[in-house]
């Protein structure tokens, strides 16, 4: 039984019909939590036993219980291998999550990041012993500033949102340096923006003001002009935007912002569509983060880690955080303490080195020619999917070309009783990860499809045929294929309402029967 939001309300009978003793279904294993199977007297690591010695813990020895069971190596292998088998991945199939850029993650990157000269060096070793690492930072910075045509780069930020924070803090520092901190408090953000944009602005005390979009999904310079004033610090604009469209009036918007004394922050999460096609600096941008975990193929790892370097215009370069690398008298040196106008430090150490190595390996492998082609192929693939689905699904902004992702709304599902969520879940039964759903918020029931350049034509064709089959099925009213979906995944739909109502966020030992009865 599902409630009106499509969430389950009461148990249904097993859809596979075939009951097993273990609950396993062939290769699909039920796997307990380690706390239920591990034992407190087991450890899977070798460890010497020190000779008795006088501890110097100052009387602060641990007295609190530590009920963490251990697993032997074979037990741990089996447990985590079985868990892994419950996951979808790019390596296993097309992963069309719009905005997230699930492209192939070359394994050369992994190999390079694991060279001991990169993986086994300490961030605070003497700088004379890490000249190769500093050269790598400088080289990555060179690629990023060249690709974007920007004056400077900070490699510090640990993900896209952290990059936004970096760029917006540089802007805030620049405004303070002009003596306008008290007056310029507003940041303009279109409603289509990713949630991190308004969250970032608000985190550092800016007030967020919405910019309306035109009927074609882009921002109207006139609308920006109407909002621009001496109280506006900056605009945060995503380009290509979250509807998968290049903001064709971006240069005019930049001019309006600059003329009004503001700064232009660009969310570069979608930079993967335009590498080698245009340069951020030429568009009038002052700061932009680049998600290395999107455009430059570092793996998403089930949610992280990422890396979000920020490129800065000449107007903002001096406000960049520490640390950064520069040429010194005896080689490269890290500047670790704020000088001049730098806004200071925003995290320990120097950034996500492990991600830098991977991203640079990708850049070197592709080169100027390959990077441009990757963008072109990503845009080609997205348009191919868009064109092939356009007659069965509905596009909020008409049948116009898109950049690297194709956006549909749920207009075409009207009257079928099937929602975007249902459609997405039915894709799971067909062996696909769903597209991004309900984002951007400005489009009703949004379905944002980003195939990336990694997919072959054959792969795209099969995906398209599958979505067309599902679409026809939905229109024929075969709602059982959708509303109960997924039927064939390791789990049926999960009860999210129940999870949030009485949050159970950790394992706790079962209450013994006798106590429970009291």
């Amino acid at each position, binding site marked *: 039984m599902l409630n009106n939001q499509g969430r389950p309300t009461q148990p249904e009978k097993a859809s596979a019909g075939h009951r097993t003793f273990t609950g396993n279904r062939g290769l699909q294993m039920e796997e307990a939590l380690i706390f239920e199977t*591990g034992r407190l007297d087991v450890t899977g690591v070798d460890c010497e036993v020190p000779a008795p010695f006088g501890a110097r813990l100052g009387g602060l020895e641990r007295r*609190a219980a530590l009920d963490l069971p251990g697993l032997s190596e074979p037990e741990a292998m089996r447990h985590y291998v079985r868990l892994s088998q419950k*996951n979808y991945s790019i390596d296993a199939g097309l992963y069309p999550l719009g905005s997230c850029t699930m492209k192939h993650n070359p394994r050369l990157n992994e190999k390079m990041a694991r060279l001991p000269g990169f993986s086994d060096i300490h961030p605070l070793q003497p700088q004379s012993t890490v000249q190769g690492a500093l050269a790598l930072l400088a080289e990555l910075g060179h*690629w990023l500033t060249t690709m974007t045509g920007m004056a400077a780069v900070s490699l510090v930020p640990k993900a896209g949102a952290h990059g936004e924070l970096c760029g917006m803090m540089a802007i805030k520092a620049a405004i303070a340096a002009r003596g306008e901190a008290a007056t310029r408090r507003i940041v303009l953000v279109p409603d289509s923006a990713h949630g991190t944009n308004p969250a970032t602005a608000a985190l550092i005390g800016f007030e967020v003001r919405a910019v309306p979009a035109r009927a074609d999904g882009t921002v109207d310079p006139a609308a920006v002009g109407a909002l621009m004033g001496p109280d506006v610090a900056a605009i945060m604009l995503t380009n290509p935007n979250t509807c998968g469209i290049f903001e064709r009036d971006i240069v005019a918007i930049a001019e309006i912002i600059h003329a009004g004394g503001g700064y232009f922050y660009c969310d570069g999460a979608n930079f993967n569509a335009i590498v080698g096609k245009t340069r951020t600096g030429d568009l009038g941008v002052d700061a932009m983060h680049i998600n290395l975990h999107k455009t430059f193929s570092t793996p998403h790892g089930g949610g992280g880690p990422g890396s979000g370097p920020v490129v800065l215009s000449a107007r903002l370069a001096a406000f960049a955080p520490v640390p950064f690398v520069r040429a010194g008298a005896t080689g490269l040196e890290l500047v670790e303490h704020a000088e001049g106008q730098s806004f200071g430090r925003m995290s320990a150490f120097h950034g996500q080195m492990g991600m830098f190595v991977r991203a640079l390996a990708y850049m070197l492998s592709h080169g100027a020619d390959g990077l441009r082609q990757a963008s072109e192929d990503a845009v080609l693939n997205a348009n191919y999917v868009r064109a092939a689905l356009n007659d069965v699904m509905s596009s909020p902004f008409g049948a116009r070309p898109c950049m690297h992702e194709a956006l549909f709304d749920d207009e075409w599902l009207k009257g079928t009783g099937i929602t975007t969520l249902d459609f997405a879940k039915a894709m799971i039964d067909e062996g696909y990860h769903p597209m991004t759903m309900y984002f951007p918020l400005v489009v009703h029931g949004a379905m944002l499809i980003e195939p990336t350049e990694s997919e072959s034509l054959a792969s795209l064709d099969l995906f398209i045929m599958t979505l067309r089959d599902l679409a026809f099925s939905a229109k024929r009213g075969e709602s059982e294929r959708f509303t109960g979906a997924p039927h064939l995944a390791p789990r049926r739909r999960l009860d999210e309402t129940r999870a949030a109502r009485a949050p159970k966020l950790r394992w706790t030992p079962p209450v013994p029967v006798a106590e429970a009865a009291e």
Partner: protein
Amino acid sequence: MLARIGVASLDELFADIPAAQRLEGLLDLPHGASEMAVERQLGALAQRNVASGSVPFFCGAGAYRHHVPASVDHLIQRSEFLTSYTPYQPEITQGTLQYLFEFQTQVAALTGMEVANASMYDGSTAAAEAVLMAHRLTKRHKAVLSGGLHPHYAETIRTLSHMAGADARLLPADPQADEDIMAQIDAETSCVVVQSPDVFGNLRDLRAIAARAHAQGALLIAVFTEVMALGLIEPPGAMGADIVAGEGQSIGNGLNFGGPYVGLMATRQNFVRQMPGRLCGETVDAEGRRGFVLTLSTREQHIRRDKATSNICTNSGLCALAFTIHMSLLGAKGLRQVALVNHARAVALAKKLGALAGVEVINQSFFNEFAVRVAGDARVLVERLATAGVLAGVPYARLAPQAGLDDILLIAVTETSSDDDADALVAALAGALPC
């Protein structure tokens, strides 16, 4: 493909880029290179660094070299973990969700807290977010930062606080752990931030500070940079901490020149709705089977936008997995044992160094890292020892050049430092110091 799209050329798809800003030629960057050529180029850069495993090595100060079992790195490279996204579709990401639930349980147990989130970027950013969380909970805006806090952490907190319009008062560097932080807590204080083991290695008793903070309606934020210590020392949760923020790199994750690492954050159950970051919770599926989902998302940016508790989105997922697997292999028993070896080796080295003329161990207590006062500038000494092939530790002045503690050297000893390594350090120091 172009025909099906209905355009004559690829360029038509890029027609929205203003003509004046369209790049016609290639970027001024090299052409693509073969796999072998890239390996050669990056290999050459890697060669120019001194790997910690190749020399006697004693650097810590927020990043620690520990032995990570081979199975950990093997498992985190499984495609299903490595190349999946944030588990927004729980039916096909139960693998990620279940390990996050295990991770949260382990972190809560280690820190002695009720709940933990599914990771932050690193310890320093977790600490900065913890301070903002305390401001939301207390509706006050003043933080007091201990002089035992890692200077990078203190700066990270101060940058964010300053930008957010909040006040973060940092006490002077406190190498002997004898500051009177309690005197700084008043009725306007939102939180006190205390690190233990602190940056000098001292273990701090948090109980009296917690009591004083609570009496004033303030919160205690406990910070650590060496999570391994929690195998041996009383966890912050048992000493009254309200929020715990720390670095989890030591378990499961390598040094990686500073990142990626994994920020740990834990708190009390009744504070959870003000917590930043993702949370994984238990529930059931439509057939009544146990399953896991991301939950309490109304705290997060994708739902709440400018009212969110944080802007964090991508976190440290795979590093959290490495932590979880390593911790599962260790178990409480293994963790305690490894922690004990760390401590034993540190105690033995401190004793040897203390016997050298020109070296004074300043700590009363410590876990696996301690501070020594040396004759002269520790930065110069460390450079000299590096030339002799020994990475002797981190000069405090590298972290805080203005503190007037140029003669303090932080020395970390883990299970990876052998007796020979320790002897090499003692000999090198004896040779390098003027006596």
